[in-house]
């Protein structure tokens, strides 16, 4: 680690590029998250019915059906074969996320993401311990459990408790006490488990992650030789284990972040003062030499702009 590890996350990038540029993907994500909520509020608030429904299923311009493929899978498990409209909608959504990265849903669309990001911010401010960190395969167990319960009860099981649809549908159609589920996730992430819900448990994210296993859009640590070990990308990444293989890879290892857990949120690009990361595609084979071996206390000379 370098002597800059103790600086606030993203501090050098802010000094280097300015606050806006060092938060550009965060701001973009907040904008798209707001967008995918606001378009459904145009109808009830302003009487503009271009977009109807919610994230579970929607109809755009009375023409384009979009449906949650995870809900469709649960419906199959519950032995209901949906009508063609829903199947088309699910295939469209499935193909899109399979191409752009399954967990793009998590970081760019899901309304729970700002909630857990907020929880993480508070978690850091309070200087909390990371708390319970479930094993990496826990999320797959939970995904299997949800499909099994769907089959056993003959219902779309996760929709009885899913905080994502509770929040999104609640804001559009009326909430009731569904906010309690959202608050529970918020408090869970602060006090029980750092990045616990989105990063370890949520079966929706797990499903979309599997969907995007071979996604085309990927982030690459293409200039990893420039890395000055400030650790900001690890600090800001909601799935920090995805970075190491790419960033710390040797010359012959790919610089692409290929883990399906990566949400393509772009925060690593935001906070990196050395401009190591960039969005690219999975077939990008730009040569990315690994870093020169160096000691812990001595950053590579000339590699750090802030030096």
């Amino acid at each position, binding site marked *: 680690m370098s002597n800059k590890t103790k600086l606030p996350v993203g501090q050098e990038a802010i000094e280097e590029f300015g606050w806006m540029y060092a938060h550009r993907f965060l701001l973009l994500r907040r904008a798209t998250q707001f967008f995918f909520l606001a378009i459904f509020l145009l*109808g009830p608030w302003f009487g503009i*019915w271009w977009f*109807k*429904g*919610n994230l*579970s*299923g*929607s*109809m755009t311009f009375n023409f384009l*059906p979009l*449906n*949650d493929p995870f*809900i*469709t899978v649960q*419906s199959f498990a*519950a*032995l*209901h*074969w*949906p*009508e063609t*409209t*829903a199947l088309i*909608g699910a295939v469209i959504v499935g193909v899109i996320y399979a191409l752009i990265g399954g967990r793009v849903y998590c970081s760019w669309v899901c309304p729970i993401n700002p909630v857990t990001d907020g929880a993480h911010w508070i978690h850091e401010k309070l200087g909390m311990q990371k708390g319970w960190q479930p*094993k990496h*395969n*826990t999320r797959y*167990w*939970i995904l*299997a*459990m*949800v499909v*099994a*319960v769907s089959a*056993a*009860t*003959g*219902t*779309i*099981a996760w*929709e*009885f*408790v899913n905080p994502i*649809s*509770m929040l999104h*549908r*609640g804001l*559009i*159609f*009326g*909430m*009731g*006490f*569904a906010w*309690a*589920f959202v608050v529970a996730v918020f408090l869970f992430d602060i006090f029980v488990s750092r990045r616990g819900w989105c990063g370890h448990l949520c079966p929706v994210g797990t499903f979309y992650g599997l969907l995007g296993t071979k996604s085309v859009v990927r982030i690459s640590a293409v200039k990893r030789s420039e890395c000055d070990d400030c650790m900001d990308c690890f600090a800001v990444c909601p799935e920090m284990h995805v970075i190491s293989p790419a960033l710390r890879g040797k010359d012959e290892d790919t610089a692409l972040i290929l883990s399906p857990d990566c949400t393509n949120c772009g925060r690593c690009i935001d906070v990196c003062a050395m401009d190591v990361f960039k969005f690219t595609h999975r077939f990008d084979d730009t040569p990315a030499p690994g870093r020169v071996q160096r000691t812990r206390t001595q950053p590579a000379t000339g590699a750090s702009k802030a030096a």
Partner: protein
Amino acid sequence: MSAHIRNTSSMDRRRFLQDSARGLTGCAVAGMGLAYFISDARALPAQALRPPGALSEPDFLAACIRCGLCVRDCPYDTLVLAELGEDGAATGTPYFTARDIPCEMCEDIPCVAACPTGALDKDLTNIDDADMGVAVLIDEETCLNALGLRCDVCYRVCPVIDEAITLERSHNERSGHHAIFMPTVHADKCTGCGKCEKSCVLPNEAAIKVLPRRIARADAADHYKLGWEDRNPLVDDLIDLPDRLPGPGTDNLVAPGGYLPATEGIPEASMDGGFNPGLKLPGTGGSN
């Protein structure tokens, strides 16, 4: 060295088994919790009516994705999505409360057309075939018509007037010389739209309410024959009972139909058609 390798692999196996057991038990506990919550949450209260064409409740919860498109396309704002903890139906599923806004029974059934999954069955093409529930005159003590007045509102507003609700006339025993026009629901015609419940003039609760068919209707008693119905004879040509008619050639001319008033006593055995037992008890003065 082989011992060391075997030791490592056994440790790996041990860890794998431990992790698997941990995952399985954790998910079994969480899954049971979820399943219990679902079984609790899917109980549909009697006052929450599903939209027209809705599948039976278990099938509905396998199909409805809670997107609210039926709600959006309902022109009368009848349908709403259930809110957690406030409405009884499973959270986010569409329903309506007849006393608030009943179903107006649109001819083109836009809610069914909007449903992307088939939770509302596209096979429903004639809204008169809808089966959202059955109206029941649930309080015959306060219903104005039942008291002998002529309110008739539920009957008048019924979209299937004179078929789903008729007024059955009977004598008013209280006044002695008036009639009671009792609103009577015919469940095979009633769609459960709830317009009768909505328009019932009584304050607060209505005297006529739409209930789910599962609550409103008893199963027909198959072991009873309703002999007055066409094609439903009491006895299906199995045995030919003798006709007992008065007149010559029958076995009882004295007492037509076999009935004899007690005051007249038993007719003499010598009389035509009189009672002549084949076995006589000793000491009863038989002619043998």
